[in-house]
């Protein structure tokens, strides 16, 4: 048996963050992870994160993973992969399976950061090959470089369902439809809008009747449901698909804590069976800490902060630092955590219909039911303005904790202010130079540069573009509106790629002047 000051189970965002904070304070730390690669879900998250600088906003998940790993290794944290913790026993003894051998470890402090597991729903044919979890799709395409399917139906409109749908489109799959039994889109509107403008139809208040096929999925039938989630006869719709992706929520993977004897509770607000813990993440057993999704399903951004707090608390528990340092660091991190837990998607608002923004503007109902803001709704948002010359149009319509656009503009055209969830507004006195930094910085891809007076009869729209092949300058194609419908012919005037854009290319298309407020995506003529 070998002893460590702190043993962390799970090398995801919270586990690595805790290990870093522990090691910084002199703890000897080891991290076990059952996977072949570290980083937990971060390495599958290829979109830019929300939040502010302190939450690593506008950095892609997998890059954050690389940063955390580098920092951990520089601090001497040992990360052991392919190491499955199979049990956690009295006196903080762990049993770990590494390759074909069982090892015993003792931690003076333990941090469980095992994350969450996907929930599933059942329907006729749900065991057929081709029905997969959304996590499986992400793993196949983003870790292993293999398309999970060619034509896919996504069930679930939460952030996971939306983000994975977009990722499927990015790797060249076709998404036939996005379906959710709920009456409204569950995830961020900006994530939905990205998917909708690629032409993916949304079916809210619909769910899967059956997966079709004898040996594997060849199709799927969905139908509308009533308020009690019962199918409405006659509303069936069929799609030819080879893959059905399920993104219907996550449950904390807290079994190790139960084995250890930590007091647990069934808390639907936190996603299921979670340990009862204090503000530092310490469970009912002194010296056993938790952080991240295992103690309540949230985002990776908040998991990192929880990890930091728990890592510092473990150092204090072991006597490496005093209570003053813990309290001081806790206050800082708590503020960062509270920053993330604000706005329409704050934990206390889960499942609630919010009809107005903090500014008192009506929320787009079309966004919540179809995935895009309707023509007659868009003008009401403060980021959408008309003026001479090139200028940003920010189709940001929900209060989410995110502000990279404000920092991105070198001319300070964009203002969010001190309240991180406020909708961005355009400062009319500042002059936009069309650099496009805001377009690339917006994690929600909701900022466009518009020039209504480009030449007689024509204007230009600059859109964020994260697909291959990259269109060529001069190429002709179509402008697609927010719903993904072709609305006009479009010509590519410029394709800007820069390191600071971090793979978000800026595509400037020329469209008829009456289309500058409509065209939001581009597709080549084949």
């Amino acid at each position: 048996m070998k002893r460590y000051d702190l043993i962390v189970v799970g090398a995801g965002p919270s586990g690595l963050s805790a290990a870093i904070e522990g090691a910084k304070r002199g703890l000897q730390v080891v991290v076990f992870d059952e996977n072949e690669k570290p980083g937990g879900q971060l390495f599958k998250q290829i979109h830019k994160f929300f939040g502010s600088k302190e939450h690593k906003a506008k950095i892609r998940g997998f890059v954050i993973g690389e940063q955390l790993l580098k920092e951990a290794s520089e601090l001497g944290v040992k990360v052991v992969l392919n190491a499955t913790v199979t049990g956690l026993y009295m006196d903080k003894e762990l049993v770990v399976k590494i390759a074909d051998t069982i090892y015993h470890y003792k931690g003076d402090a333990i941090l469980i950061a095992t994350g969450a597991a996907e929930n599933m729903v059942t329907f006729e044919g749900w065991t057929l090959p081709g029905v997969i979890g959304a996590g499986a799709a992400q793993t196949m395409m983003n870790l292993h470089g293999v398309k999970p399917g060619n034509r896919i139906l996504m069930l679930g409109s939460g952030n996971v369902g939306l983000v994975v749908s977009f990722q499927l489109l990015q790797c060249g799959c076709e998404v036939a439809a996005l379906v959710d039994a709920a009456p409204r889109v569950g995830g961020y509107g900006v994530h939905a809008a990205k998917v909708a403008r690629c032409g993916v139809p949304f079916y809210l208040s619909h769910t899967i009747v059956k997966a079709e096929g004898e040996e594997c999925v060849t199709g799927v039938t969905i139908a509308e449901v009533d308020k009690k989630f019962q199918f409405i006869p006659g509303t069936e719709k069929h799609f030819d698909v080879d893959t059905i992706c399920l993104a219907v929520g996550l449950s904390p993977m807290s079994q190790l804590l139960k084995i250890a004897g930590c007091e647990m509770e069934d808390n639907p607000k936190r996603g299921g069976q979670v340990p009862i813990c204090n503000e530092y993440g310490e469970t009912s057993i002194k010296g056993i800490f938790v952080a991240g999704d295992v103690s309540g399903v949230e985002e990776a951004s908040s998991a990192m902060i929880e990890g930091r707090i728990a890592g510092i608390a473990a150092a204090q528990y072991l006597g490496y630092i005093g209570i003053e340092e813990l309290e001081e660091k806790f206050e800082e991190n708590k503020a960062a955590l509270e920053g993330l837990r604000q706005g329409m998607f704050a934990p206390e608002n889960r499942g609630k219909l919010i009809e107005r923004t903090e500014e008192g503007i009506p929320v787009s109902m079309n966004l919540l039911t179809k995935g895009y803001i309707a023509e007659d709704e868009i003008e009401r948002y403060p980021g959408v303005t008309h003026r001479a010359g090139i200028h940003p149009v920010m189709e940001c319509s929900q209060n989410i904790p995110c502000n990279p656009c404000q920092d991105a503009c070198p001319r300070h055209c964009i203002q969010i202010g001190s309240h991180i969830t406020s909708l961005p507004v355009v400062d009319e006195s500042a002059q936009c130079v069309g650099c496009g930094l805001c377009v690339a910085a917006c994690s929600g891809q909701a900022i466009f540069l518009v020039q209504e007076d480009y030449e007689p009869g024509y204007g230009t729209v600059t859109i964020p573009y994260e697909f291959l092949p990259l269109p060529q300058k001069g190429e002709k194609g179509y402008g697609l509106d927010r719903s993904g419908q072709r609305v006009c012919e479009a010509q590519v005037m410029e394709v800007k790629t820069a390191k600071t854009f971090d793979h978000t290319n800026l595509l400037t298309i020329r469209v008829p002047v009456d289309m500058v407020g409509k065209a939001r995506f581009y597709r080549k003529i084949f």
Partner: protein
Amino acid sequence: MQHINDRAIAPGTFIPEPDDDRIICRCEEVTKGEIRRAVHEGMYTITEIRRYLRTGMGLCQGQTCARLVKGIVAKELGISPAELIPATSRAPMRPVEMKVLAKEEGRHV
């Protein structure tokens, strides 16, 4: 929280449902109908259901079906899933060959 293990609850007569043949526990191939019927036969706790039908006792140890089984049992008893005591968690958390379990202590990392 008050957990339900009340034998006074009578789930009534078993009424077949059209999707009773649907697999719930994918590993042990236990159907919704079997789980519902087990409740009517007196298995009111997740532990009893597990021992009676082997739900969640297969290779994956209930990773996928635990939540689904809980939902079905709770519905049958007319209670909230949160009122059911979840099944006991036991090591090993992942499938481990017996010969590996028996081979203790290599050189530590």
